[in-house]
């Protein structure tokens, strides 16, 4: 499939290169390993492929049929129709990395706009062209901080209320740096409070990393923590939910150094976990310390404004073994989706979606708090995720709700055995009042099973 050569053309070409048949092209392959039989199914036609994949997709229970109150790092937000239609344009999705800027201004300007929107959303001065996802962006922030101090500050203080997958990813990345020391306090309750976490920052600390709102939904003021950390000479990084920033104070207001996060909520479908979008913003002084592509503005010979990849001397293809990171891709198409999303929603839309999420979540929380047997655990201000304590095991309750077409919140016991019977519920603008009321009914019903 997709090979245009006709028999006639093949013969002409073979003649030009002096070969009799195609197999002669592979004489350099050791004979005993040449032309293996691959035990995979024979080719399907396009029609058959579509049918088979349709059957597979049909075997899923997706969130278009089910009601979803699950978040914990990936979110069910509405993706406006215009986003996907624009992504369908072949000039966007079949284009390559913009190494030849003269014929890639579309991609370059879109990334430049992405950088600008993320910078302004987070309140920081600059942003890069993106990382693979929020977890790797967090890992890269830690790496940047570690190398900024040339390994002289081997300690990284990480909030226990970071998304557990981010913590795991950072552990994997830092497993390679023997001299580094990751400090993640065991006492999650006590160290939820960033001010307490700041007590662990000393002159050996390169970075302290927290999440805002945190994994359990809590919002904390980060100003005091940031001041304390800076007094010790350490850098501060914050992982954020970009939708929350439609309403909440941007982390830049607290004086932080790096803002990272998962951009999936910005017009990217959940798609069973990927591809997603990591974003990374920082202060101008630190721009050379961060990894990832960056697009800058310039002019051509006639003075016409244009865009190019810049600061490439930091990157792998030039610096090679001295590069700050090995990253080669950015999430081009996903960054484009987010740029279109943020442009479409704009100032008022981003605020509107944030408020819808906030109010719906708070309504749900208040109502659940009134249910017999259930307790609202979250004490801090929260955005659209909160924790409830259930009278039974979360998996049992979720099983009941699933039978009625509702996907319940995240079972926190899965990531922390101390959080027994605790569920993290997420509400977005996609959840109607009827759905929230259904959730309440099913939570109540689940007690009687």
């Amino acid at each position, binding site marked *: 499939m997709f*090979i*245009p050569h006709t028999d006639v053309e093949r013969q002409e*070409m073979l003649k030009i290169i002096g070969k009799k048949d*195609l197999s002669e092209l592979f004489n350099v*392959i050791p004979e005993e*390993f040449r*032309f*293996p039989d691959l035990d*995979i199914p*024979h*080719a399907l036609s396009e029609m058959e492929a579509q049918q088979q994949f349709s059957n597979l*997709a049909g075997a899923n*229970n997706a*969130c*278009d049929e*089910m009601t979803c109150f699950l978040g914990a*790092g990936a979110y069910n937000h509405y993706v406006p129709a*215009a986003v996907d239609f*624009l992504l369908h*344009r072949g*000039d*966007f*999705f079949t*284009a390559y*990395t913009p190494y030849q800027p*003269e*014929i890639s*201004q579309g991609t370059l*300007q879109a990334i430049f706009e992405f950088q*600008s*929107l993320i910078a*302004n*959303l987070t309140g920081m001065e600059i942003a890069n062209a993106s990382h693979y996802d929020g977890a790797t962006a967090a890992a890269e922030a830690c790496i940047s901080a570690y190398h900024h101090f040339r390994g002289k500050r081997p300690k990284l203080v990480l909030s226990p209320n970071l*998304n557990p997958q981010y913590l795991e990813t950072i552990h994997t990345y830092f*497993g*390679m740096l023997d001299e580094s020391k990751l400090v993640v306090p065991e006492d999650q309750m006590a160290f939820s409070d960033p001010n307490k976490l700041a007590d662990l920052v000393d002159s050996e600390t390169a970075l302290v990393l927290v999440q805002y709102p945190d994994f359990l939904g809590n919002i904390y003021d980060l100003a005091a923590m940031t001041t304390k950390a800076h007094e010790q000479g350490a850098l501060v990084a914050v992982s954020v939910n970009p939708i929350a*920033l*439609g309403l909440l104070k941007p982390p830049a207001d607290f004086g932080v150094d790096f803002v990272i996060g998962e951009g999936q909520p910005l017009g990217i479908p959940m*798609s069973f*976990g*990927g*591809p*997603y979008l990591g974003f990374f913003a920082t202060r101008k002084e630190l721009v050379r310390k961060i990894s990832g592509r*960056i697009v*800058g*503005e*310039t002019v051509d*010979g006639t003075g*016409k404004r*244009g865009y190019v990849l810049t*600061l490439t001397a930091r990157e*792998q293809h030039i610096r090679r073994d001295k590069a700050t990171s090995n990253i080669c891709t950015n*999430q081009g*198409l996903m960054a*484009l989706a987010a740029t279109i999303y943020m442009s479409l929603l704009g*100032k008022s839309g981003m605020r509107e979606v944030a408020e819808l999420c906030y109010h719906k979540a708070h309504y749900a929380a208040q109502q659940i708090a009134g249910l017999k047997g259930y307790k609202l655990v979250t004490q801090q201000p929260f955005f659209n995720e909160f924790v409830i304590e259930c009278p039974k095991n979360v998996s049992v309750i979720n099983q009941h709700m*699933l039978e009625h077409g509702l*996907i319940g919140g995240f079972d926190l016991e899965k990531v922390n055995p101390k959080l027994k019977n605790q569920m993290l519920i997420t509400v977005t*603008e996609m959840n*109607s009042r009827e759905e929230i009321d259904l959730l309440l009914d099913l939570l109540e019903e689940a007690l009687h099973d």
Partner: protein
Amino acid sequence: MTEPTVYELSSPGRVGIEYAHLDVPPSELPDAFLREELPLPELSELDVVRHFTHLSQLNYSIDGGFYPLGSCTMKYNPRINEVTARMPGFLKVHPLQPIETVQGSLVVMYLLQETLKEITGFSAVTLQPAAGAHGELVGSLIMRAYHRSRGDMKRTKVLVPDSAHGTNPATSSMAGFTPVNVPSDARGNVDIEKLRELCDDTLAGLMLTNPNTLGLFDEHVLEVIDIVHKAGGLVYGDGANLNALLGVTRPGDLGFDIMHINLHKTFSTPHGGGGPGSGPVAVAAHLADFLPDPIVGILEEATDELPPLYGFVHPPQSIGRIKSFHGHFGIIVRALTYIMMQGPEGLRAVAEHAVLNANYMMELLKQDYTLPYDRDCMHEFVLEGVWPDAEGVHALDVAKRLMDYGMHPPTNYFPLIVNEALMIEPTETESKQTLDIFVDAMKKIAKEAHEQPELLHEAPHNTPIGRLDEVKAAKDLVLCCWRPEE
């Protein structure tokens, strides 16, 4: 025409999309945490659609023309991939949903794991890495974990051929290894004698791209692998050039221990203007336990009444998680769609025609350009973009001039071991017609280089914008189109 930025198009009060009214009683907002300003643009839906449509029209793409970028495998991106990836059953699924509700997606991932194993000749596969470089990192971490599990702590050296992609030494350093250069011989193979000298008990492994970035299959690959294995090292295969080997040979059979695969190169998933990619890693049996966590497996075997239950399994000595969730599912679906439409015969035809196309072009161009390695190539080949009798003309000029002929230039200045390199990879989806047009343009440019070099120096002339001032970009560092202070 300069396309304004979204901020320049903005008009206060404009709205691009409206949402339903709040259907629950509002709660009090947290005053202490409310932001004062939200400096985002205000555009209508038409503004947005028009703006991004204009931007797309400034781009060159595979849909628009030939893209012979060496080692990038710019093959056609089938539309059916876009259909299957967007099926709502796949798209609207949360990664943490109960596994009973996502069996369809798990089967897709399992099938791709199994198929990639069969195609590459390895025992186990992870689909978690987000891109090739990410896969390389996984490979390096597995190498490290393997040696350490055997108490072998002093293996810190990784050998990297001088023709290697920049990610290879960058990844090695990142993983805590010391990359050491291995030179190539005059035929473009790894220099066997120099390799032997470098193989000692501090050797963690060799990172080998085969065919290499010169487009050449190493004539001593079995010996190279054997030397490394005898010294106790592992052989990591950079799978960027796998397109030449589909159905032709399997790296696992040749003796490679680990390999990363680029779904966005070999398996037709779109490049997206720089991503997303997907970089699955395949390993030999002795390394399967170290794969990232989680991979997809069968939790319960099929019975007479029920199909198997698919779920996530945790490799017992896993290097850990390397990103959130389980991998780029949207890219995985596309790659599986492609493979299922190729079948074993189709995959072999892909390699055969990719290699045929490259050799054909090489034969036609070697009279006009210096060909540093004159032997049968695989799916790509390298020319020198410089002539001793065309003073002042460099590969960059040839590249820029090609744009005037409506084509994307080949990869420039890589690999580093060829002077003024032009790395050309046609791929199998390009017809003889297209190749002939490209060859014709290259021949014309070679002539121009000697007779009218100014045409090259001032190129491109026919593109939306001319050569850009990269020095100014790096010095002025304007990285944002609008700041609230403005």
